[in-house]
Each structure stands twice: as structure tokens, then as C-alpha cells.
């Protein structure tokens, strides 16, 4: 455990030395996250105001809220992981920790309003054997980074929906960690709208006998960019991870959806399944997918991954056309339904998530963002 002050100090000296990224994402694209967007905000000063978010929440995290800040850090993010982590800690004014017992919890961050980088950090600790459902909602009107760490003690059972609404005109970065100790179990969902450059870096650590079912959904529109990373690292025997990411790229936006599934040497008899799908809607839309797999033991029960990027096929549009739907209607119907179907593994947090997803999709359509249709190749 280290003190927040020490971390801030370390972050201050490290962020100037560390690189955003050591290894290229591909031979042709150095990085799917456009780091130059963040670079501009490093070291900028300015005021920050925190506003209460609309709606009813059990816990409000931040200066407007009802949770006491904490001064010791016991999370999993290392200040020397890279420039982003270092700068996140450097700018972190308050650290919040919540011990969560069984039951339903709705948590929201106070909404920071600023032109400078704002760091948010929340650690949720689930008690041993508890059974809880949690909604975490973050909106921001500032650039910056938000870390959300969820630690499930042994045998804890969690349903978690994280809803992220960054400000479109600033870069945003999310560092999410879920650690599931022995025999723990989580059904989780992460949803994010787009920003100037939006990086969602989610890492799941699975111990012995633990289970994770995770879904993520991102929309990108206009010329915004999202880089959605979901890594799963299984280090315990008999663990199971089922992860799927869906991205929809409208207009001239870029959706990158990727993840690495690691089954370490100790995680014998484990299962990993990773599926990534990107739908390209706009005429300038781009999608990058990287479903990676590193299997370090031959004693693996199952490991599969798949990815696809496409438009709705000509045959599909013809089929729905024969039912009286235009191409635009067919596309929006399928997008809508696909978005909703990704929430099937949720129960108590489902309606909250569904409302948010529907709301954003409606906004995309109302603003006429996706005007360009036309079928894919087949």
C-alpha cells in the first residue's frame, strides 16, 4: 500500500520520462490510440468545478458527493505502467474507496467541468461471499482519465454495468481493472459514447475457479475515435472468461476494438472465449480489430476467438427490404436490436443500461449522424 501523495510525486517525475506506448499496435499503424490528442493537455492548469449528475444515486463520488476520500492506494494500477498511468496519478486529487456489501448499488461520479485534465479514481471492494449489483455512471465535461477498479473477494458474485459518457470535445481515457479472486463470479457490461479520442483500457484478472462474462459496446460517430481494449488474464486453475466486444462506426469515425486473452501456465483447465465485432455504417467509417490469444499452457479446456468487420450484407438488406423496410430502417433495426441483445447476461442493472444505450442510439439517429448506407460486399 502506498500513500496518494507519494504516488502523485512519483507520477510527476515519471510521466515526462515514460512513453505512451512501447510496442507498435501493428506494422502499419503505430498506435490505435491517437496519443497526440492527450499530449496537448499535459501540464495545463485551470479551475475545476464539480456538478451533481442528474438522477438518483446511492453514492456520489467526488467533491459534490457523499463518500469520504481515502489516502492509501491498494489498487492494481502501477504508476510506472506508462505515461497515461503516471499522468493519471500525477493529476489525481482525490481517491475514493467503497466497501460494498450485498445488495443493489447505484454509483455516480460528480461531473467535472474544466478545460484541464481531471483524474477520477474509484476502488470498489466486494466483501467475501457477497452478492451485489452495481451501476457506475460517469459523465465528464473535461479532458482526463478515470480509473475504476473492482476487487471481488473470494466467492463474491457481482453484476456490474459501467456507463461512460465523456465529453465529445476532449480526449478521455478510462482505466478499468476487475480482479476476481478465487471462486468469484462477475457479469459485467461497459458502455461508452465517443469523444475526440476515447481510450477504454479494461483488464480483467481471474484467479482460481473464477468466472467472468463481459460485454462491451461502443459507438463512434462523426470524426470521433474510440479505442476499446479488453484484456483478460487468467492466472488461476479452472477459470472461465467469456468476453465479447461490439463496436459500431458511423460517419467518418474509427472504432478499434481489441483484446488479448491470456491463459497463464498456472491456469490449467481454463476456458477463454473472445469475440469481437465491428459494424461499419458510414461511408468514411473505419474499424480495427485485434482479437489476440496467448495460451501458455497445453492443459487448456477451450480457447476460441473470432472477429468480424462488415456492413450489413446485401442479402440481409434485400431480405428485410422484402418485408417493407428501407435500407436505413433495416440498418437501424438491426443496430438497435444488436445493441440491446448484448445486455442479455444482465438482470438487475439491465434496465438502467438499456435506457442509456437506447438514449444514445436515438440521439445518433435524431442528429442524422448516419446518413450513408449501402450494403457490404456480399
Amino acid at each position, binding site marked *: 500500500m502506498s500513500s496518494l501523495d507519494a504516488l502523485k510525486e512519483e507520477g510527476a517525475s515519471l510521466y515526462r520520462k515514460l512513453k505512451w506506448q512501447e510496442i507498435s499496435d501493428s506494422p*502499419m499503424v503505430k498506435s490505435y490510440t491517437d496519443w497526440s490528442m492527450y499530449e496537448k493537455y499535459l501540464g495545463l492548469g485551470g479551475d475545476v468545478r464539480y456538478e451533481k449528475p442528474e438522477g438518483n444515486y446511492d453514492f456520489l463520488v467526488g467533491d459534490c458527493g457523499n463518500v469520504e476520500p481515502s489516502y492509501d492506494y491498494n489498487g492494481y494500477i502501477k504508476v510506472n505502467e506508462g505515461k497515461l498511468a503516471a499522468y493519471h496519478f500525477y493529476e489525481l486529487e482525490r481517491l475514493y474507496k467503497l466497501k460494498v456489501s450485498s445488495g443493489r448499488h447505484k454509483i455516480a461520479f460528480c461531473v467535472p467541468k474544466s478545460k484541464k485534465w481531471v483524474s477520477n479514481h474509484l476502488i470498489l471492494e466486494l466483501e467475501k461471499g457477497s452478492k451485489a449489483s452495481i451501476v457506475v455512471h460517469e459523465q465528464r465535461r473535461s479532458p482526463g482519465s478515470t480509473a475504476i477498479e473492482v476487487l471481488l473477494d473470494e466467492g463474491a458474485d457481482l453484476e456490474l454495468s459501467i456507463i461512460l459518457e465523456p465529453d465529445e470535445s476532449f480526449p478521455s481515457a478510462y482505466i478499468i481493472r476487475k480482479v476476481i479472486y478465487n471462486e468469484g463470479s462477475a457479469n459485467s457490461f461497459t458502455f461508452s459514447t465517443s469523444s475526440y479520442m476515447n481510450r477504454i483500457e479494461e483488464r480483467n484478472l481471474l484467479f482460481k475457479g473464477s468466472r467472468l462474462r463481459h460485454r462491451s459496446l461502443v459507438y463512434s460517430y462523426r470524426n470521433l475515435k474510440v479505442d476499446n481494449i479488453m484484456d483478460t488474464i487468467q492466472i488461476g486453475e479452472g477459470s472461465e472468461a467469456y468476453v465479447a466486444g461490439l463496436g459500431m462506426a458511423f460517419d467518418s469515425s474509427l472504432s478499434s476494438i481489441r483484446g488479448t486473452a491470456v491463459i497463464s501456465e498456472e491456469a*490449467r483447465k481454463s476456458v477463454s472465449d473472445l469475440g469481437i465485432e465491428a459494424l461499419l455504417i*458510414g461511408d468514411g467509417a473505419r474499424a480495427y480489430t485485434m482479437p489476440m490469444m496467448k*495460451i501458455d499452457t497445453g492443459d487448456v479446456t477451450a480457447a476460441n476467438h473470432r472477429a*468480424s468487420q462488415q456492413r450489413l450484407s446485401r442479402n440481409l438488406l434485400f431480405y428485410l427490404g422484402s418485408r417493407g423496410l428501407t435500407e436505413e430502417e433495416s440498418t437501424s433495426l438491426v443496430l438497435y436490436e444488436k445493441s440491446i441483445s448484448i445486455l442479455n447476461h444482465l438482470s438487475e442493472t439491465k434496465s438502467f443500461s438499456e435506457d442509456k444505450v437506447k438514449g444514445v442510439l436515438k440521439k445518433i439517429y435524431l442528429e442524422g449522424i448516419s446518413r450513408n448506407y449501402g450494403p457490404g460486399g456480399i
Partner: protein
Amino acid sequence: MKRLGSPIELEKELKEVMGEKGVDELLGKAKEYKKEIEIRGKIGRDLIEEISKLKKEPKWMLNLRLRALELFEKLPMPNWVEGIESIDVEEFYQYVRPEAQPGEEWNQLPDWFKEYYTKLGLPEAEAYALSGITTVFDSENLVTKVKEELKSKKVIFTSMDEAVQRYPEIVKQYFSRVFPIGDYKLAALHYALWSGGAFVYIPRNTSVINPVEAYFIIGSELEGQFEHTLIVAEDNAKGETSYLHFIEGCAAPVLKRFSFHNGMVEIYAGRNSQIYFTTLQNWGKSIINFNNKRAIANENAHVEWVEGSIGSKVTYTYPATILKGRGSTTRNISVGISNGPYIKDVGAKAIHVAPDTKSIIISKSISSGGGLATYRGLVKILKGAKGSFSHVSCDSLILDEKSRAYTLPRNEVDEPTATVSHEASVDKLSEDQLFYMSSRGIKEGEAKALIVNGFIREVLKKLPLETVSILTKVINLEFSELGGVG
């Protein structure tokens, strides 16, 4: 006579060699042989000029080498290369010329060379199945045979060095135009030091029925081999096509220390041409193998890469096709086996530039005995490559607990009308399967060979017959050493 590590089938009993443990043991311990010239030292202007002078090269080639040297010095070591401690390229002999007279006949060779080639079955294969063969030993081509089919069709087939002398206009036009000199550090090193290799030029509307083969041997430890192969198929007339099947094989005897192979293949596939390139990589376990392969496919051309990657300590190879012409297609099939504490880092790249292009990538990898088999791939669809299609499938089979399998695909789609899909799975050999087989009297090694053959059968169906047969044999050989374990 045994014919192994080469892609041409001979109806010989495999049993004879089942006791031996890979092609390096088949070739036995490295033989002492006389070397006319050996160059080792600081990789700089002096060394490059010395090599170029030895080869009596024209000025333009020397200049190309020097440009490459400059880039080599500037470029960083690739940071994605895993599993290799920093290679000290100055520890290796950068150029080795064995004492032997190059020519067209096997008989002209000193006995100890002849013995290697005979063990590999090359003279026999050449006699009945090939339209041409060239063999590279260390840094130079030794035997180059051009048979009647090539001569009558006016196909040029020669060593790369000779091509520089005899066909400078064609070489100037294509050499280093497919694989850029500054692509990455080791490509630049290759261009600075290249020596030996094959050159093929296919005139328009010409199909070569029998395959041509190039065979590479590294004879000593601490040696660097930088052979370069360039294949050029001219644009064909409308409705006409051309065809070539090029086979390359490689081998090395048992060496005490490492040697370094940094070869390159460039293919320029003109309009409507079809180029099939098969590699049977069966280097011994002391070879660090970088293989740089790239093709440009013009309108309606088809380029097919088949890679059987069996031997070597570590192998890095990602054959790439740039689909530059409308309607061009590529297929890339790789079978990588990492048996023992070795690394196979193999994959494929398909860069879709033009509309209606198509790529199919199939990778099958097997790891065993603590090996790591990695698929590393890239599918890039550039904006404007409308209606393009790509499908990638990667299957890995892990044969024991301590072995590993990585799948690292990248799909980058900048054109929304494209369709790209990727699927991958990892399977293991189960104890139940092994037990079942042993109850039928099948030993562990044999069982593994059977399972591996089953695992890659689907891929084999897509390959030329001669490739299939030799791959099957090499796999049996690779796993037969485990026979005694069970």
C-alpha cells in the same frame, strides 16, 4: 536414397529415416570443407565494398548496398520481436565462399558437397520432376541447371548474382521494388549483404509446367546467409495467363553454434499471372531464421504462399501480398511446427489496395515439447478497396502442458464496404485420445504424428500433391523421436 526436407515426393521407405531426429541429423555433423573466402568484421562501408568488389558488381548495385547500410545503421531493432536475445550480426561471418567451381553438373562438385545433395535427394528430384534447380551453399550458388522447358519458353532462370551481370535492366527495374530497403532494420541488413539466390523471369503468356526449385544449405556455424530470390511475371495479354510454381527448401547439418539466415523473396506478379511459392523450411535446430517475403499482385493476378515451417531454432516469417490490381487474389497457407524448445513466429499479411480483391489466410500451428508457436498477421483494407473480402482462420494444437500457442491477428479496415472475418481456436491433445490410441498399440510419438496429420489434413487438401507428400513425411519424422517415450 533418402529425399527429405525437399518438397518433391519420392516413393522411398520412410522407416529408414524414422530413427533419425530431423534433417540436421540426417545430414550428420557439419563436415569440414575448404573455404575460398570468409569475411567477418564490422559491418561498414569497407566490408560492403569488399563483397561488392569480389562479385565484380556494377556501381549501381554497390550504391544500393551502401544505401541499405546507411538505413541499417539508422533503423532501430524491431521491438515486436520476442524470444530472441539481441543478435550480434557482427559475430557471424557475413560472407562465405566455399571452394568449389559453380556450374551445371552435380559431378563437378567435391565429394562432400555431393554427399549432402545426394542425402537430400536433389539430383534425383531434378532429374525427373523439375524444370530447373539452383542450389546455394553458404553465400554462393553452386549448381544451377536450366532444363529444356525453361529454355524453349524463354524463361530466365539463373542465380541472382548472375542476373545482376546479365540482365541489369530487368533487375534494376524490380530488385528492392517489392520489399523496400528501409522496411525494417533486418531488411536493410539483407540488402547490404545479400549474396546468392534465384532469379526467375516469366515472359508474357507463358506457363511453366514443371516446378523450379532453389535449395539453400548453411554448411558451418557462425555464418550469415543472405540469399535473395526475385520472381518477375510480365503482364499478360487479355484472356491470357502465365503460371509458375517455385519451391524453396533449406537445410543445415548439425552445428555446434548458431548460424543466421536472413533471406528475402520478392515476387512481382503481372496482370493475370499465377505464382505459387512453396517453402519447406527444415533448417537444423541451430539456425536463427528470418525470412522476408513479399509479393505485389497486379490486376487479376493470383499469388499463393505455402509455408511448411518445421525446423530452426527460431523462425520469423510473414509472407505478404500487396493486392494492387483490381480483382487480384492471394492465398496464404502456413503450417508451423514448434517441436522442442523452439520458437515459430509465422504469419501472413494481406494489403488490399484495389477493389474486388480477396485474401484467404489459413494457419495451422502445432507446439510440442516446450515449443512456442505464434501466428502474427495483418489484414489491411485501404480506403477505396471496395467490396474486398478477407477471411483468416488460425488453428493451434498444443501437444503437451509445457508448450504454448499465441495468435496475434490484426484487422484494419479503412473501407466500409469490405468484409473481413477472423476465427481462431486452440486445441490440445487430450489424455483420452492418447490412451485410446495406446490401447490400439500405437506409441505416443506415432499417435502424435497421426493426430497432427489429422489436424492439418484439411489444409493439405488445398496444396499441390508433391508438397503434401513431403510435409506428411517430415511431420512423421519430426514426431517419431517421441516414439520411445510412451
